[in-house]
């Protein structure tokens, strides 16, 4: 499966439980999120928000409503 690299705008959350966790980390609507890379075999995503780095599981990233801003290629 391929995932787009690049910058995204966070529009909202699909899951309130996840929202509570991510907001506490400073990941919330209105912030820009950049997907940088992905760990092996369907592993976690390495993302950057507000010049800070985070590790997010696939379901955690997909729990965010995102709008793509720039295309940075694909993450395998």
């Amino acid at each position, binding site marked *: 499966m391929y995932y787009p690299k690049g910058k995204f705008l966070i529009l909202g959350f699909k899951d309130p439980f996840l929202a509570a966790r991510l907001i506490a980390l400073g990941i919330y609507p209105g912030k820009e999120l950049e997907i940088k890379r992905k760990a092996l075999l369907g592993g*976690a995503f390495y993302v950057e928000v507000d010049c800070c780095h985070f590790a997010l*599981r696939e379901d955690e990233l997909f729990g965010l409503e995102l709008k793509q801003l720039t295309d940075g290629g694909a993450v395998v």
Partner: protein
Amino acid sequence: MVEQSYKIGLVGNPNSGKTSIFNHLTGLNQKVGNYPGVTVDSKSGKIRAKDGSLIELIDFPGAYSLHSNTYDEFVLTRALIDLKDPHHPDAIIYVADILLLDKQLLLLTQIVDLEFPVIVCLSNCDLAEPELIEKWTLLLEQKLKCPIIPVSSKSYLNLDTLKERIQSIIRFSHIFLSRKNLYTIPEHELEKLESNALFKNAYNYLLWKHYGQKIQSSRINNYFGKEHSLKLQIEETLERYDLIDEWVSLIQFNKNTRSKENTNKIDAVLTQPLVGVTIFTVIMFFIFQAIFSWASYPMDWIESGFATLQGSLGDLLGDGLFSQLIVKGLIPGLSGVMVFIPQIAILFFLISWMEELGYMARVVYLFDHLLKKVGLNGRSVVGLISGGACAIPAIMSTRSINNQRDRLVTMFVIPLIPCSARIPVYTALIGFVVPYKEIMGIFNSQGVAFMALYSLGIVMALLTAMVIRYFVKTDELSVLAMQLPDYRLPQMRQVLMVVYEKVKSFVFEAGKIILLISIILWFMSSFSWKGEFDKVEQEVRMESKMMGRDSLETLSEIEARKLEHSFAGQAGRFIEPIVEPLGFDWKISIALLTSFAAREVFVGTMSTIYSLGSNDDEILLRDRMALEKRSDGSLFFDKKTSISLILFYAFAMQCMSTFAVMWKETRTKRWPIVQFIYMGLLAYFASWLAYHWF
């Protein structure tokens, strides 16, 4: 009279520099305990303020918000909102990294609204521009009406000032209470919060409505219901962020000033999928080598030191009961505790160095997915690999896993990973199963068999994890979402403090249990019913006269027969019918009992039983074992019995130190007992299957 002491909580986000400040303020005067109901460490230390008053400083686990997502965070929330909590502080020192202030102010705004007297320490000020420090200091002083102290634990900036200011936080606490709330509770929710004298203010009561049920489920019902509670939490947090964003814009804080350039460069390599995993494998090989091989030198010194002490005290104290207790019970027990110190110290030196560097968070990122599939956690990888050298430090290393279920599952399966203590047993037995043969000119058949045994242990550990996770209940969500801190050069003082704390907690907590079990085992193998040993000795001496044995052979035979007739020997005979289906006799039964002290004791016990004297040479033992026959004249250690015995040692929890450490780390007897029974049953069935299959 008990002196009154004030409690001050040290609070902050993970990686805010909180623990460095705690270590600086308390030095070695620290006590590690645990928070009630959870296996989260509570660290506290006593300091004396300049006016002579005694202050207890509590280092709370790092948290991002009082709306807790993990046990670590819940511990803080509970302590701050429950006035009856034994860790409820009188005041708070809040530590926040000046370069990450926009991220780390959320929790501070919540604490301020709880009306705690607060001192804010802006850490890492040696890395920030003076102008930025000044702007933040003035702004926060004005907005929060509390003292702001820029500090650096690296350059010791203002740390003494902080110590001086601590007493003022207590004395002038009323000054801090005149602040306006930073978060405005919505009118419709405020109306529902009837006044309650048990709580400091409306925000305290609001938090109690969120978490009261979790704290005291019997008394307080969840007021909001889960969904509404989450909605309120999100609204509250976003409102606080609006306020923080306003402050950030006021001082024109440029987030790009963070030291992320180096981090980006390093992470481009260390978190690159294939390269990252390869580099970690090399690092783990280095760690494995360190605890497996390098630690063996100091371990040998400790063992030979105790052996010398044992000899000298034996000569000094003579042959009485007290002397035997000291020389054969206490000293080997102490030696059994101290011998693990080098491995624990080396492992924790390396792990905490990597943790301080910021690398361990990357390890979690790299391995989380693979290990999550079997019910483990990215951080489990260190414990699992270290378990290949010794389960004791490996189990202790799981403290860094913040999800309680993942941690328990990891601790449960670590003893299945083949440790170095199994090697002498395998060496003595493997020759009976696989004859020495060269394979392709480079490998030898016995080496391959060793490799297969290691693989078997790893596979069994992973399979066990997949099953056991369903039996460990938790209401904690399994989340990864975590910040990856910037790389920073570790401070050696912090690293050494961790090593000191781990060694101390092992020696004084697990050490007591190891010592006790060791003395019980000594008693069982050295004593019997009254007159039994005298009778045995007379019989052997008469036999020896008739058979023409020399005095050394006679003494060895006496030792062997005494062990046979000791309480341990009788227990061995008692359990013989249970282990007979595995192909074992009473001699092996005794070895199984005594080697609960440690697996390698098998070699010494079997040597004594076979009258080889106190010889720990596994090759000599193997030669003697090769001659052992059953009553029908067939060889005792044939292929099936040997495989059966190897598998028993591969899976059974033959290690009192592992038992003791599990007891200490889980803070309950239940888990080590369940683990002991599970591993025992697994060993029994694997051995039974092997004995009847081959």
